[in-house]
């Protein structure tokens, strides 16, 4: 792009090193069509991508998946990221990481570890992860992380089965020695969309969990940082999805596609470039996919004249497409969207019938080892 405003460099890169994972969480953020192991980028290509990312201005790399440590080269990759100046963040299920592997990652310069926890009670958590004994193994890893003095974040995804336990989750994270916790309501794309009826919290749960976050922030100030992701279906205004399309971050899939957000492949008319064919810089600056919804010029009403257009950027393009059929429409999480009432109705319908207890809730698990 030679005209128009300058494009800021990205700050963060989410590297989905693999889609393989020992867990089967029903709200997994991976796409419904998972990349096979045989299609994954090789070590050398990832190395090039991280060097290009650092040169482009990326400061932090999020080594994620699937389970990123399922890659045999995870230590090599971590050391390389650190060598090129990136802050390295491991986002892990916590399975098969404790012991020598974490020690090696720490020695390689790993900066931060995020462990997903499916709850604070082991049997309920194992029911959500779809793996018996998973919670205990996460606890083991968490203890090793804090023992090494590495910063620990607890990633807690919130849904109907655990929305009543936000306070307990924060206390749990504090007791683990975590410096930070993400209290993230489920985002309904991909796998979570398939499980929407089983995961959707009630309006009362949303209210009480939001209040619990506020209370915990006050009570635990200075002990733990709480970052909260609010639930779209009960929102009045949309979230600035990934901080704005092509504005702050990018995502590389296991097979090398570069996306503005992890769900972007659900937008069928966009073609996403691959790191095997192009440099990250060319993709970030010049690709049609990254320029499609960058900034505010692409917007229609009510976004175009909205005074929040440069704050929330019209919300999420993927959600707009999924619920309105138009990826350039206002995210229905916004009260100004003509589809907002439909979104509220979907949430109400989802919670109206199902009243199973957490251990009896049936999920369509993601299975992909």
């Amino acid at each position, binding site marked *: 792009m030679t005209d128009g405003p300058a494009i800021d460099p990205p700050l963060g890169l989410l590297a989905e090193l693999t889609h393989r994972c020992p867990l089967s969480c029903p709200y997994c953020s991976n796409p419904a069509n998972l990349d096979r192991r045989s299609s994954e980028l090789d070590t050398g290509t990832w190395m090039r991508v991280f060097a290009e990312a650092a040169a482009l201005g990326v*400061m*932090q790399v999020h080594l994620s998946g699937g389970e990123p440590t399922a890659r045999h080269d995870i230590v090599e990759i971590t050391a390389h990221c650190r060598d090129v100046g990136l802050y390295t963040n491991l986002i892990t299920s916590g399975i098969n990481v404790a012991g020598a592997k974490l020690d090696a990652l720490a020695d390689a310069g790993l900066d931060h570890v995020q462990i997903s926890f499916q709850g604070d009670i082991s049997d309920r958590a194992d029911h959500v992860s779809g793996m018996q004994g998973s919670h205990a193994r996460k606890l083991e890893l968490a203890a090793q992380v804090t023992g090494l003095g590495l910063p620990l974040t607890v990633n807690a995804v919130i849904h109907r089965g655990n929305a009543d336990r936000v306070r307990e989750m924060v206390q749990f994270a504090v007791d683990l020695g975590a410096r930070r916790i993400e209290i993230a309501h489920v985002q309904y794309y991909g796998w979570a969309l398939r499980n929407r009826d089983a995961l959707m919290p009630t309006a009362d749960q949303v209210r009480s969990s939001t209040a619990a976050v506020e209370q915990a922030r006050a009570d635990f100030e200075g002990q733990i940082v709480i970052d909260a992701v609010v639930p779209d279906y009960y929102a009045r205004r949309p979230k600035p999805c990934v901080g704005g399309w092509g504005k702050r971050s990018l995502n590389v899939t296991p097979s090398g596609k570069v996306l503005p957000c992890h769900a972007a492949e659900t937008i069928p008319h966009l073609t996403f470039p691959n790191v095997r064919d192009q440099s990250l810089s060319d993709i970030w600056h010049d690709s049609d996919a990254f320029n499609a919804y960058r900034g505010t010029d692409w917007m229609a009403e009510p976004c175009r004249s909205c005074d929040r257009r440069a704050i929330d950027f019209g919300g999420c393009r993927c959600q707009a497409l999924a619920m309105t059929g138009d990826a350039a429409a206002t995210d229905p999480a916004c009260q100004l969207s003509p589809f907002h009432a439909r979104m509220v109705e979907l949430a109400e319908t989802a919670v109206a019938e199902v009243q199973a207890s957490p251990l009896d809730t049936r999920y369509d698990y993601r299975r992909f080892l």
Partner: protein
Amino acid sequence: MIVDDTIPVLPRGVRLREDQARGGFTLMAPERVLKLDPIANEVLKRVDGTATVAAIVDDLARAFAADRAQIDQDVKSMLQGLADKRLLDLVAND
């Protein structure tokens, strides 16, 4: 609570880095990239894990020929803010 003898320490996973792409310095931390203004950068450059708050304030007052009481207040306030966000450990110097 910060007192003169407190030793501020950047914990593992929190580090200063020059930002070549955008200019200036940043504090890198879990899911945070904090752009530092020149004053914050001068303070954090002196957080070496051994210097006390008083020593850091002394050094700044000398380097910038500025009012020590004002610097003392600003530095303590800034460091407490970082500690509240778990970006800085405050070690008591017994």
